[in-house]
């Protein structure tokens, strides 16, 4: 009955489909993104004003628009394939940046305590008390839109999430006898954090990073949807959705397919995150 009394060991043997199925899906999307120039049937920016807003399956002068065309006659399928690059690139980069900064600061706060702890954790509190989307929006408003700026903004606004988790985990680990012994034997803080603390908290940090990854995909798409993200003509799923919104009554496919891609990607990542969370932290499920 009680979650605590459950054995921590694997509940069942055999392949864990709840992890492998979404992981395979994510891997597939990564491959599609990497191979986009070779996979996409046409150029994502090639316009054809004679084939504007055509439905899926439309054929014009030897060109087949499998998923239809957009308001400038660009092939939607090709744009979707290229759009995967933006989503994944932004999510990977911002998660790595904010994860590195947040984990480092959180570990320092949790291990060094004292003034470092006070300053870092107060700043974390302040960042976390501004709703994340609003913080991202105001930062974009200052820095201006664009691919690099979106990555910077997301990293800048999301590091406190990692810092808070890393801090809590480090507090627990710092009192372990082996950490105290290492300190007693003269190991310096960087070495202790790197060799003894990090390996113990990396599991929890991976869970946070995975869940954040899904959120970052949504944030990038949201910013691009609002016109604050990646700028045209670069294909971004969020920006494509925003265009499609204007043609809902006449061309449903423009908004529907990019949204479906986003949904599948985020769902796959969240399924992985959920599974990892069950694994590293049985109580939090």
């Amino acid at each position, binding site marked *: 009955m009680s979650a605590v009394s459950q054995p921590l060991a694997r509940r069942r043997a055999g392949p864990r489909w709840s992890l492998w199925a979404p992981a395979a899906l994510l891997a597939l999307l990564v491959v599609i993104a990497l191979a986009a120039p070779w996979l996409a049937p046409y150029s994502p920016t090639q316009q054809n004003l004679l084939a504007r807003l055509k439905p899926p399956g439309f054929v014009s002068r030897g060109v087949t628009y499998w998923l239809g065309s957009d308001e400038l006659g660009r092939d939607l399928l090709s744009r979707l394939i290229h759009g995967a690059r933006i989503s994944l690139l932004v999510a990977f980069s911002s998660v790595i940046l904010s994860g590195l900064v947040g984990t480092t600061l959180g570990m320092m706060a949790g291990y060094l305590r004292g003034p470092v702890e006070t300053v870092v954790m107060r700043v974390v509190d302040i*960042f976390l*008390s*501004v709703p994340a989307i609003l913080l991202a*929006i*105001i930062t974009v408003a200052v820095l201006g839109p664009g691919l690099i700026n979106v990555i910077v903004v997301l990293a800048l606004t999301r590091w406190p999430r990692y810092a808070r988790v890393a801090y809590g985990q480090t507090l627990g680990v710092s009192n372990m006898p082996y950490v105290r012994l290492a300190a007693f034997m003269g190991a310096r803080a960087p070495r202790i954090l790197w060799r003894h603390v990090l390996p113990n908290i990396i599991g929890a940090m991976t869970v946070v990073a995975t869940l954040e990854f899904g959120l970052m995909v949504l944030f990038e798409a*949201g910013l691009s*949807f609002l016109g604050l993200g990646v700028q045209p003509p670069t294909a971004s799923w969020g920006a494509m959705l925003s265009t499609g919104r204007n043609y*809902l009554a006449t061309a449903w496919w423009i908004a529907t397919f990019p949204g479906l891609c986003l949904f599948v990607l985020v769902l796959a990542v*969240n399924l992985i995150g959920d599974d990892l969370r069950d694994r590293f932290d049985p109580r939090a499920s």
Partner: protein
Amino acid sequence: MAGFLARRLAQALVTIFGVATLIFFLQRLTGDPTYLLVPETATPADIDAMRRSLGFDRPLVVQYASFLADLLRFDLGRSVIQNAPVTTIIASRVPYTLALAAGALLVACGIGIPVGIAMALWRDSVFAKALSGLVLAAQSLPTFWSGILLILVFAVTLGWLPPSATGGISHLVLPSVALGLLSMATFARITRTALLDELSRDYVRTARARGVLPGRLLGRHLARNAAIPVITVAALEISNLLAGAVIVETVFAWPGLGQVTVQSILARDFLVVQGVVLLGAFVTVALNLAADILYSVVDPRIRLTGARA
């Protein structure tokens, strides 16, 4: 209780002060904030005049002090583009966003809490697995996509509900559902976790052994204890809903805070954006404070002073 309140209030004020500081320095990330406030067509002379009239040529410390002083007087500045005080612009939009957030909260709690209870009571059943799959799917839905799908199905195809803009209560349905589905997942999860935690306690076993009926057990014993985490999450979710409204309002052309924020960014009307963000942070801090106080009323153990007022 008084000590607890005072301590918590002081903490909230420090955080608000911190947020104001954060925003002040954020504006200066690219150097001169004047550029955030002038149209792209402004001449260097215009920019100079603007810089002087806004006081951006003064030392940073002086600017910071006057920024804080203005905030204390609830003066968020004046929008150059709309030629109106920022507070007036924001105040005119607040009712719309509140209505939307309330509708979304109703959807989120109305679906999320029963789903969470079902997932806890029938845990490990196929039914609960299916529900948790649905919850995860709802959590992965981009609100701008679910909003667009709702418009496609219920407005464009079926013609049951209006696609966008304002009017009667029927205009509020689709945006509320789009916004509420995301929070629904949060409510379902937290309700499930809270209920499972309580179900594992000794008093539940005792009550069951005494033959207390499940309905009574849930209503009288579990609901009160499991409500605590749900209340906190509700407070946090309200601020998430307000933030999520930025995107949903754009999808549905709903004239709330979100719409004015996006319009202001595109029109380079930075003070309005800043005002909305400050308001968002203030509301978040206030809701957190409220949740903590409510918490301590529901569960006296939380009052660290241990004494009743």
